[in-house]
């Protein structure tokens, strides 16, 4: 069985695929030696599985109201109790994982590529392009994210789609900065000059050679940002500007439970534990990934 492993960690790989798989294997191995990163990865895996298998994990219909069973404490029938409309909180938390996963995925898909393209363009072309793009980036970076997201949602109108757009608008600048810094370190290296001498267009140089090199630090940054994105989305839901009822979004659930916090504490606390768990998972995984993929950036974020 050692042959496959030997093939993976071969110092002189015969094909790009072998090199890529070998790199992946080494990163994976290094990650698995970091206990906190393993915990984080397991939490994220559980989140994804919960979202996938929500109908099987939920014990009740998350939207079905049964007014006879209002505000029941946690029990065998209702593991996390019921809310003010008699809906099962466990089932709502389970289905809520789908919303959380959708939010973080969409924000990452919207903001990371936008930041990446802007950062690489600024770093590669330099001069005025750099000055203008980074000027805009710095202005966004120097503003408070949550407040900006709140103002954008207020203008666009409440709702989960607008919340995602607003969070994406406030998250791209961090990625642009990272991508620009990475691009500057590669820009003048010999292999880029070699590609350029071969007659490659700047589009081709960037897409084929610069962008891929930025991905590892982008992955680290995106993972570390996930907790913040989850908290902002939950905050918007809590204020009433994010996901609208009856969607079982965790922040909105806490907001509903606010009136009952003194006597029926479970309504507001349970979704909070879910938020903390998932955010912690992303933090642990992000810390571990950074140690493996981007050791030079150290403790600071």
């Amino acid at each position, binding site marked *: 069985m050692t042959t496959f492993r030997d093939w993976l960690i071969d110092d002189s790989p015969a094909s790009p695929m072998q090199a890529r798989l070998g790199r992946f294997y080494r990163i994976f191995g290094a990650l698995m030696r970091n206990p906190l990163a393993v915990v984080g990865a397991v939490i994220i895996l559980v989140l994804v599985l919960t979202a996938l298998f929500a109908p099987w994990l939920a014990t009740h219909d998350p939207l079905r109201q049964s007014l006879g069973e209002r505000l029941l404490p946690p029990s065998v029938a209702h593991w996390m109790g019921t809310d003010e409309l008699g809906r099962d909180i466990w089932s709502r938390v389970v289905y809520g994982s789908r919303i959380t996963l959708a939010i973080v995925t969409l924000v990452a898909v919207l903001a990371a590529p936008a930041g990446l393209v802007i950062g690489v363009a600024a770093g590669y072309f330099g001069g005025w392009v750099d000055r203008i793009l980074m000027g805009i980036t710095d202005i966004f970076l120097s503003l*408070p994210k949550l407040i*900006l997201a709140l103002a954008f949602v*207020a*203008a666009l109108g409440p709702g989960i789609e607008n919340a995602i757009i607003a969070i994406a608008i406030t998250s791209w600048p961090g990625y642009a900065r990272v991508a620009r810094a990475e691009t500057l370190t590669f820009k003048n290296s010999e292999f880029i000059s070699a590609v350029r001498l071969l007659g490659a267009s700047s589009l081709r140089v960037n897409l084929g050679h610069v962008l891929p090199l930025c991905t590892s630090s982008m992955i680290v940054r995106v993972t570390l940002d996930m907790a913040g994105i989850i908290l902002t989305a939950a905050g918007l839901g809590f*204020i009433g500007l994010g996901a609208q009822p009856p969607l079982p979004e965790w922040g909105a659930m806490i907001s509903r439970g606010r009136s009952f*916090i003194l006597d029926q504490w479970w309504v507001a*606390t349970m979704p909070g534990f879910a938020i*903390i768990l998932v955010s912690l998972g992303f*933090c642990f995984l992000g810390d571990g990934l950074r140690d493996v993929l981007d050791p030079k950036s150290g*403790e600071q974020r």
Partner: protein
Amino acid sequence: MANDSTTAAAPARRAARPSRNRQRLTSLAGFLITLAVTFLGLLAITFFIGRIVPIDPVLAVVGDRAPVAVYERVRQEMGLDQPLITQFVSYVGDVATGNFGTSVSTGKPVIEDLARVFPATLEMATLGIILGVLIGVPLGVFAAARRGSWLDQGIRVIGLLGYSVPAFWLGLVGLAIFYARLNWVGGPGRVDIFYDGMVSPVTGLILVDSIIAGEWEIFRNAVWHLILPASCLGFFSLAYIARMTRSFMLDQLSQEYVTTARVKGVPERLVIWRHAFRPIRVPLITVIGLSYAGLLEGSVMIETIFSWPGIGNYLTVALLNADMAAVLGSTLVIGAVFIGINKISDVLYRVLDPRAR
């Protein structure tokens, strides 16, 4: 100390002074330009947000049954027929003269509302940052001194919790435990309802105002109410400050001069506090500044929970009523304070750290 070296270096320094002054002047000019551009950027963003609102500002004034002629006249009076750039210039002029528009929900000029609510936020955030620094810095130093110990692991987890706990959830749970169950602290609001409005606002900071008025009863009551929301905010700043202090300290403790001090037999306590801690005070100022600015932002959620009559509460109420003048005014003020604190800590860093001069 080191008097002889200063006198010896004096002539050389005098010769270098004019160019250094010029350097300082250009860096000051550069700083002012960045500051101005950043503020303009903030204004551009709020202006843009104000334009994408799906509510027609003219209809909001004239009502939707106004004749076309009236509509057109009001539209021209509001300057909405002008090109966008002209509109932006007059918007900047308005903001510069303190005209933020009128709030639909309170019926007062937004600037007056903001001046009334801002001190409450300032009071809470300031107490929060004081708690964060007083607890966070020693925790970070201890964690670095005992690297890898249980204490270090615990502080690391606290640091990460600071990134993962929703502020509004922490406030709610805090209220449920410390106010409802244990009754250790006061509930929502700045003071108990029967003390409300009993001290005349001089500074707007109720702790200061009650001292000025000599109302110790109210002062005690205000502290009783302030302590829980400020602790919630303090938790987030202590998590961040402890994390950064730890990493700065680890950097210093691995330096050779620390080893030298240890080899010379300097007690470990002195090595840590006198040798390793001194150089990190300057970067810590930046961290504390960043954290303070972050608390002004974080107070939005905390204020909602504690019915705290500050800018965060004002903003959320305005958000829910689609009161755009108030929303944009609050965004501008919070953004400007945020930028201001960031830039000030930047400048302080440069002034205090000889290497960055």
